[in-house]
């Protein structure tokens, strides 16, 4: 009897040891590179940059071989634009972080940024506005905030590339001036992305594009940025959760959706280009909704008392956490120095992102070009922060 009990105890201890090994091994494997990304490891940053540069080159070759066509639906169009935009922003951020690499990355940032402005890239927005092209209707009062993503990429390219083509700079100046006029005219601090649809996150991209344009050209945009900052703090942030509302009415300023983590994550990144204080405020809200398990972290999509299955903005919501909010939160975590949160979130990203290193390259296998472009911008964020 004593022997049986002893064997049982030993088995129990072995079981505990096994569980401890699983508890330590998985976070260790997934978090090995977290500190290197935090500290700006050049090999990792350049590895991902090289792969995205290679993707852009393959995309250029394909576009030269065949007639470029617009995306079939709105979401495919948005994804295409964001892929080139985030690649450009990531390259510009590397140029800011490592001045010795600027001559190499700045022209590539310019190429990717200008590609995100091409007619076939913005066609989904033109169709949403019933044929009104954002760049050919600058005097219009329609918001066209979707193009602020491309405008921000161009602002960043202009910040790092002294050889940015002058004619394109002139048309970019005109786009920024139109955004400035529309934003100042909005009492809610919102302009529409599509007819009757305004997203505070997209307007944060508008503000970021204006702010970086000011840094690149020396033009003073303080008035419009203050106008936006005040309205974000007083009207677009839910006082209970600290999240920004996902969708609102631009005229009345009434929420059309609940406050959510995915919109807040991306808004926190964009807010960093304009005002560190606002970025920190949104980041704090995100990290208050962080859920951790065994060293892995993820951001909740909905505030307490609200729930949902997610949508195209959040990706699938499982156990209350969303893919997008978790990925987006990497940017403010790194830029604003929330090291613990960054490590937890990075482990989850690696667990599902399946990163592969080969030679000098680095690629998240399950991310595709858009996932890798987004992660490239978020994992190198920091140098873009407003002074």
């Amino acid at each position: 009897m004593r022997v049986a009990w002893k064997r049982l105890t030993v088995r129990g201890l072995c079981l505990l040891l096994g569980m401890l090994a699983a508890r330590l091994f998985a976070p260790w494997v997934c978090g090995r590179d977290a500190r290197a990304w935090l500290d700006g490891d050049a090999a990792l940053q350049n590895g991902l940059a090289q792969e995205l540069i290679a993707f852009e080159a393959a995309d250029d070759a394909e576009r030269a071989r065949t007639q470029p066509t617009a995306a079939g639906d709105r979401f495919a169009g948005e994804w295409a634009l964001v892929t080139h935009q985030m690649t450009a922003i990531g390259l510009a951020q590397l140029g800011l972080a490592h001045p010795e690499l600027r001559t190499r990355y700045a022209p590539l940032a310019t190429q990717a940024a200008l590609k995100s402005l091409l007619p076939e890239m913005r066609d989904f927005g033109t169709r949403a506005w019933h044929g009104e092209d954002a760049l050919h209707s600058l005097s219009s009062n329609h918001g066209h905030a979707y193009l602020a993503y491309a405008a921000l990429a161009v602002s960043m390219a202009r910040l790092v590339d002294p050889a940015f083509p002058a004619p394109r700079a002139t048309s970019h100046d005109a786009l920024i001036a139109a955004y400035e006029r529309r934003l100042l005219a909005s009492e809610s601090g919102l302009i529409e992305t599509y007819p009757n649809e305004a997203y505070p996150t997209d307007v944060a991209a508008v503000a970021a594009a204006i702010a970086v344009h000011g840094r690149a050209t020396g033009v003073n945009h303080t008035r419009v940025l203050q106008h936006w900052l005040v309205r974000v703090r007083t009207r677009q942030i839910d006082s209970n959760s600290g999240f920004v509302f996902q969708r609102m009415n631009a005229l009345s300023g009434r929420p059309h959706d609940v406050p959510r983590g995915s919109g807040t994550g991306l808004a926190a990144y964009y807010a960093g280009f304009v005002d560190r204080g606002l970025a920190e405020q949104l980041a704090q809200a995100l990290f208050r909704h962080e859920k951790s398990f065994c060293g892995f972290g993820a951001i909740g999509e909905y505030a307490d008392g609200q729930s949902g299955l997610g949508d195209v903005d959040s990706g699938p919501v499982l156990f209350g956490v969303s893919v997008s909010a978790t990925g987006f939160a990497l940017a403010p975590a790194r830029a604003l120095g929330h090291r613990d949160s960054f490590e937890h979130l990075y482990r989850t990203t690696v667990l599902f992102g399946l990163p592969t290193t080969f030679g000098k390259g680095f690629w998240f296998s399950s991310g595709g070009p858009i996932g890798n472009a987004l992660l490239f911008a978020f994992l190198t964020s920091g140098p873009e922060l407003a002074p």
Partner: protein
Amino acid sequence: MSSSTLARARQLAQVLRTFRAQILLWLVYQCSKLVFFYLSRQQGLLQGVSVVNLGTLSFGVWLLTLRFAVLFYLPFTVVYRVAKRLWLATPAR
């Protein structure tokens, strides 16, 4: 080849036999990871059109299942079996 080397090789073979399921799991995972890497690189976003093949997506789900097994089940089972082997190797009295 000396007898001690042969004995060691036999010992190693015995250990490998004990963990053959775990080794197989790890090999299948590594091969699947390689295949998925090349599959995912061939698809993506060209000409503004996002292309995601359903087959690749399904393969990704299979790979994620294997990844969870390798990261959580593998260390658990290896440590559990090694510890049990060491502690229960001598007959308890």
